């Protein structure tokens, strides 16, 4: 800024931009007076101090810019977990389930519509459902008997619709029965 302004008037030899910290040395005492001007430090210690502080501030700013640069330009984050296919693992959900009836449910799956497991709509529960693939947990009870009188048959396991083609799988829809279309209004599509 100063430099620009200085250039603008450089044509005049009577002028000189002065007073910069950097220019200080050149600024020999031209004031013809025996008094020491206010603020002037003849030893130059303060000038060194201010210059040093300036460098510190500059470095801090540089570091800050670097930090911002790094944290705002990252485009990838450490590896996300390898999620196993949904049907092939144990599912435990519901954490407000203390004291509720427990049940395990076997859900065979993949590549085809999930079978709907009939279970109690129980308002006590079916809450804690562990679904395990038969191979993994062959001993798990395949179905949960309703502890409380069942009213309607509804799914208690996560319903999985998996397909490898873009074509609509009527089977999946059919099997899924009550699941998506009625609930989401997706049938209108």
């Amino acid at each position, binding site marked *: 800024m100063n430099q620009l302004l*200085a250039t603008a008037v450089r044509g005049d030899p009577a002028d*000189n931009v002065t007073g910069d910290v950097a220019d*200080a040395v050149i600024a020999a005492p031209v004031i013809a007076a025996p008094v020491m001007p206010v603020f002037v430090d003849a030893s130059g210690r303060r000038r060194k101090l201010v210059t040093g502080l300036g460098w510190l501030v500059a470095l801090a700013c540089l570091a800050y810019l670097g930090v911002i640069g790094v944290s705002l330009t990252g485009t990838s984050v450490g590896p996300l977990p390898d999620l196993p296919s949904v049907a092939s693992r144990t599912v435990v*959900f519901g954490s407000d389930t203390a004291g509720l009836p427990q049940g395990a449910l076997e859900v065979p799956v993949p590549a085809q519509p999930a079978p709907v497991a009939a279970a109690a709509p129980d308002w006590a529960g079916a809450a804690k459902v562990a679904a395990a693939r038969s191979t993994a947990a062959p001993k798990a009870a395949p179905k949960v008997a309703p502890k409380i009188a069942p009213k309607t048959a509804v799914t*208690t396991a996560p319903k999985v619709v998996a397909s490898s083609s873009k074509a609509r799988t009527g089977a999946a829809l059919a099997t899924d029965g009550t699941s998506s279309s009625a609930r989401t209004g997706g049938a209108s599509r």
Partner: protein
Amino acid sequence: MTLRLVRHDHTAATARHRRRVRPKFLLIGLVVAMFCSVLLLNGLVRSQIGIDARGAGQDGDDSAVPASVSSGGPVIDLTHGRRQSISLPSRTVALTFDDGPDPTWTPQILAVLAKYHVPATFFVVGSSVARDPDLVRQIRAQGSEIGIHTFTHPDLAEVSTDRVDREMTETQYALAGATGELSYLVRPPYSSEPDALDDLRFDVISRLGQQGYVTALVDVDTEDWQQPGVGAIVHNAVPEDGQGGVVLLHDAGGDRSETVAALDRLIPEMQADGFTFTTVSAGAGLPPANFPAGPVDLTLGRIMLVAVAIASHIVTALEWSLLLVGGLVVLRTLLVMVVALRHGRRVRRARRLAGRASPLRKPPAGPVTVVVPAYNEEKTIEATVRSLAASTHPVEIIVVDDGSTDGTADLVEGLELANVRVIRQANSGKPAALNAGIAAARHEILVLIDGDTVFEPGTVAALIEPFADPAVAAVAGNARVANRKGLLARLQNIEYVVGFNIDRRVQDSWGVVTTVPGAVGAYRTRALRAVGGISADTLAEDTDLAITLGRAGWRVVYAPTARAWTEAPATLGQLWRQRYRWSYGIMQSLWKHRHAVVESGASGHIGRVGLGLTALFQIVLPLLAPMVDIYLVYGLLFLDPVVTAITWGGVLFVQLLLGAVAFRLEGEPVRSLWLLPAQQLVYRQLMYAVLIQSIATAAAGVALRWQKIPRIGDFSGVPTTRTAS
């Protein structure tokens, strides 16, 4: 006001000037860059984000969306080339909260969840996480899980894939920094149910799936963002026919009190109805959504949060200083309105009374000595001397030539005016030149004037009028801008009229005039000699002298009708150097007389009121003025641009009002004020840049050289017909 005389070792100085590396500019550049990024970062983190308007922009072609997805469950696992849509089991509900965390609503929602021991899933906006990392820690501590809702809440289908990646990564960093965990669960902003997916948005979630993200959409929308009423939200939250569902709620983006109240009803009601509450991942049979971050992500995340915290603190400090600026501007406006207007009335009344010539208060009748220090004033000195010689009051004119190299002295002698003397001396600076003139003065009253200033015929008479009071030692005249060609001169004219002269009226009203302008001032010779003449230890010897006299118990007053016309610098460079010297000199004077603040009597009055006013309005206020500009830009970009523009316009209007008052007081045509908005753009920035440089110079203890500003002798703006009567 004044100009300084100097002998330059110019050639050597310039040569070194050019060779020298200028670390100063490195510092300035870095500081500016840092400030920009601080504001950018803070703006990014704090800007208002849009809330999820349902189905926003999602009306595109959807032929490429597989039917199994669009009619499938809300949790869509597209990782590892899979395509699985997962619905929650019956009577199993995952409450999800979008757009948070929010310092007001998130804790309230967590409190309700904790009350019923129910977990939920929070899809957080990364920028909000960075701003309030503690909120996500609370979410995790409560047992809920966290999904990603991007960093700045854009519609991911409308931005580049690179931006999508950055949005995800930055949010992960923020999450890692706050909780030490990452999340594989994502909900794109503005998404809703799977059947609303179009091709573009399916592409986005497919890409995210390839990176390992599971998308969690919604199958039960409470529409709580529309604030439909507590009852409606409760009703909307219950899946039909006893099915399970991912329920969409919001914990940010507006007044969420309905959501909180609805939550407090729907949880117990649904629990009573047999529903179980769970998280999205658990409900979908997936592993927990949050998992420990690796060391790199953890470090980057922590660094990011520190950077955001620093930015936040800096901006808070900026906001406080902006508030201070506002307070000072209001204070100044009030002062000017009340004090300056009253001063104007008093001056007019005094002049009416003076017409009746009280015998007790008679201004000195004898001639006065006018001292004109001159260093290379060839272009202007003739106009100056001739205007003085034409004074209605008898004058003795002493031109002190301070070793000029351009024949200034010869020119004056060549005028052959009877009452003009020329003293030649080797170049030794303006104070020495003034002192030489003072020593040679023969009269009781001394008028000191710059060699680039012209007086009106009645100026001297008006200037010495206040000396009728024997306690008055110095009278400040009214310095005005003579050259009116060019924008810069006009802007300076505004500043002289609205700034300096108004300030001086306020100071005069309180008996604390701290500057008698070097361009036009009168002194009692006795008082001047008593304080040792003109000092050389500050660059603003006019300010120093006025304060010294005031501290010694003399009165220093302002005579607004004693007008002198001075040539203002015509280029930015000249203006820079002039103001650099002024502000440095004023700071020197304040520092030199700092002890007056704790003294008693006249000295203490000057110290506390005079120095206080000067420091406040000539140092502190201009130093904080950049806040106004910074906030203007910041506000236009990140806050409400309309509100910002209106606020800025309001401040400008107040200044215009102030300007109009000042112009009327000075008898200037008010229409010149139309340039005031232009003053906000370059001029003001120059003023505070100069001030910052002065402070740096002062702190470093560097000697600032005296500088001479070249004149061209343009007195076009001087009203030739005007007299001081």
